[in-house]
């Protein structure tokens, strides 16, 4: 699944995955409109890319066939179809700072993460038409920076996640680093204790730790000290760790009014797929023109597994 840039940010909507879900939903809708035969769509009812509210029945009857706007390539479905001819950046790759953040979603096997990492980076390289990226940040499941005060958040953090699995995942990233495909590696949501433990167990050290603190003026002092000592850059973000729960994904792809109609929920599904869907990973990528600070390209890839 792919999603283009989305900038919907409701004031006060903290750490929301709204950006991802909006991005996916609007990309699905856009593809449905673009690839449908013109008479089947009603572009006049559009206002700035959004469908006007219509009843569920109308929506169902006007929804184009899934096969028109998605692609099946062997056992892989692309939702929507990716037109690679539209990919690429406007200027020389050296003009950009390209960052990819890869979310390993909960409930996926550690053994699969090497493949996920390779797939995610490959898709982004293809999408942007580049041969390397500047920074790859990985987000492990079950991690957060929560607590009433940031000290407490740092403490709680040390018990979260799974050190062993995280360390076991890292060689896949180190490999990309050694190949020169990724220039810098980064972690997300590592508090001081976890980070300290992690550093002793890896060959290629992370150069970035991306954290989400409620009040960024209150970064836990132990983390600040450690980062300074180990020369690790502390960056901010506003993503949630569980960025694509399976319920959300099912709704996005399902037959509901706001769904894409890809996934069957009942016998009514005509061309839809059936079965359990399990999201595996999400990759968020941004390409920023370095000396102008302009985000030229931003989007998401999400991959899920369908058990028929």
């Amino acid at each position: 699944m792919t999603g283009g840039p989305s900038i919907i940010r409701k004031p006060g909507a903290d750490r929301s995955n709204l950006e991802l879900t909006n991005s996916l939903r609007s990309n699905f809708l856009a593809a449905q409109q673009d690839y449908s035969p013109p008479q089947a769509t009603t572009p006049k009812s559009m206002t700035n890319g959004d469908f006007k509210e219509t009843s569920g029945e109308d929506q169902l009857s006007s929804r184009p066939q899934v096969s028109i706007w998605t692609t099946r390539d062997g056992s892989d479905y692309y939702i929507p179809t990716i037109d690679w001819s539209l990919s690429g950046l406007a200027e020389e790759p050296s003009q950009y700072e390209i960052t990819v953040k890869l979310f390993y979603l909960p409930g996926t096997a550690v053994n699969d993460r090497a493949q996920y990492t390779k797939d995610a980076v490959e898709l982004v390289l293809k999408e942007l038409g580049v041969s390397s990226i500047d920074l790859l940040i990985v987000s492990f499941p079950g991690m957060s920076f929560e607590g009433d005060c940031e000290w407490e958040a740092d403490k709680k953090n040390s018990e979260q996640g799974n050190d062993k699995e995280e360390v076991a995942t890292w060689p896949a990233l180190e490999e990309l680093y050694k190949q020169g495909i990724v220039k810098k590696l980064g972690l997300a949501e590592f508090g001081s204790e976890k980070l300290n433990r992690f550093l002793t167990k890896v060959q290629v050290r992370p150069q970035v730790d991306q954290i989400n603190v409620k009040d960024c003026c209150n970064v836990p002092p132990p983390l600040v000290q450690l980062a300074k000592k180990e020369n690790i850059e502390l960056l901010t973000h506003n993503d949630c760790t569980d960025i694509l729960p399976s319920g959300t994904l099912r709704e996005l792809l399902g037959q509901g009014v706001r769904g894409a109609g890809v996934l069957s929920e009942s016998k009514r599904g005509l061309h839809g797929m059936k079965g359990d869907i399990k999201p595996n990973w999400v990759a968020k990528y941004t390409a920023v023109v370095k000396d102008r600070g302009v985000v030229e390209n931003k989007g998401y890839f999400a991959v899920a597994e369908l058990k028929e």
Partner: protein
Amino acid sequence: MGLLALGTPLDWPEAKQNANQVREWGIQQLLAIWNRAKGKERDALLWGDEVEYLVVTYSESEPIVKLSLRQADILTALAEDQELAKNGGCVPALQDIAVNKGTPLPVFHPEFGRFMLEATPGKPWGIGLKDLLDVEPNMKWRRKIIKEHMHADEFPITLTTYPRLGCPGEFTIPYYPPSGEKLRSQFVPDEIANPHIRFPTLAANIRARRGRKVQVNVPIFKDENTPWPWKDPTVNYDLHNWPEDDDVRNGASPDNFIHMDAMAFGMGSCCLQITFQAKNVTEGRRMYDQLSPLAPILLALTAATPIYKGFLADTDVRWNQISRAVDDRTAEELGEKPLEHDRWRIPKSRYASNSTYISEDPRLRKEYLDPDLVIDQDIKQKLMNGGMDDRLATHFAHLFIRDPIVVFNEDLQELDLTKTDHFENLQSTNWQHLRFKPPPADSDIGWRVEFRPMEIQITDFENAAFSVFIVLITRAILSFDLNFYIPIAKVTENMETAHNRDAVLDQKFYFRKNPFPVRVPRPYSSNGAQSGTNTPAMSRPPTPSGPIEDEYMLMSIDEIMNGSSDESGNEFPGLIPLVESYLDSVNVDVMTRCELATYLDLIRKRANGTLWTAAKWIRHYVAGHADYKKDSVVNDQINHDLIGEVLKIGNGDLKGVRDVEKMLGGLQGCK
């Protein structure tokens, strides 16, 4: 101010006779720039801020504060400082500036008012987000350096206007009597202006062209004990030194308005201006258009001008006063007499809000433009013949309806196409709320846009906050392809609205409901462009349809800045959340983000009323002063104490300053 060329300036009737030649040569120079630089590409974002200061003499024991006219002496002291000179120097008007390694010294410039100084960073800022944190310390450094080259009782302050400029009695040091030959003002002496020949000539020729003195009338704030109708008690109806002294006898000073009569009342104001370099001419034109609708909002948000000539005004900002202070339109151009000698009626002063958009953006609908825009058709045709497109030619043909005001005899001998002096002569005396600046001659500088509406703030923390906000919103505009277009006439209306007392909270402004881009269909799909095009990038968004009135609505500044509330049923995202989305999309380190959050917090709270504008704080300060008699009069004692508090605030010493927390909150900027 522009270039300070030396020469023999022509008096008005003679300057007027040469106006056509200056315009003609200006157009040729513009075309030379255009053809040289229209393809200039991939310039980095560089930007600069300009902070302007008033210089006052203040001591706690001395009851009367005065404006110091020692601008030239202070600049000389800065230029002659051996230590500063060793580090490269900092007064380009008086010395060559060397580019040394390390952080270059700030740069100091003269300004129109002889009581003013301007300071800019020694080199432009970049977009490294960490660079943004250098702005505030740099501004503080500028203030410190200036102070070190003043007398002990002289201070730089960042108030927009001096509250008692033009009051009867002595308000300058040294003292000069008013009613001089150049300004012919009842209230201020000729010596109030920078003595460089350009400035008195500018003032004199504006007056001469206009046929009378400028009229800067500001409505008086009506307090409980303000006499009504209010007649400006400082106006002298019995003065007979100059023919222009008849102006007040002919109704120049209407009831209920504070009356001012000289350029210094406007051009003696301090502003906060930001200039950006665009990647190319296309991006520059787009930035110009997109920033245009933001200008009235930022004007109201930065409101800091509630006092003129010793009286509380009923408006909060400086803009229209400057506009009137340089309004050189004749009675015919103003529509007071039938057109006989002049070529057209002109609806706005040469200092005014923008009157047109300049981008070739397909989102710019022709309905947004002013169908009655006054342009010089002949000049437009010349520009188009020379290769400029219709829209940009229209913009310059509008600027060139004006006469050049200051013409130096020496410059009329020969046209030099490698220079831009004649073009700049008109360009730099068209003071619109944005200025589109072509690359200068002999330099690698690119196309630039200057954002001019903001009022200077009392502290460098605030000045840095607003500067940084403007930089960030431009990045969000470019990154997210935002669209703020509304009809240009509505922008003009908003600029007027922004003048109202406490407009930031009490007024609503026209703003575009949905700033997000309309999706471009995939070019090879059923609904995309199917004309066999092989350049997908060329595909245009679908032509917008529907009445333009549906695209915008009246919004409060809170809604524009912070986003629509859930209850409102509107969906405007808010400029600050858009900036935050931008920051979420780029890699920012936590400390930088924290500092930037403080800046955004200040602006957020100004917009939602949690914090007061400087205008509101000053009003409250005056109202709460023991000497204030609720009669709109700001006397010497109130002025003295107000300036004393402003000095303390400007130095970061907030202790004991009444209500200062209501203006600044507990907010602290970069150290």
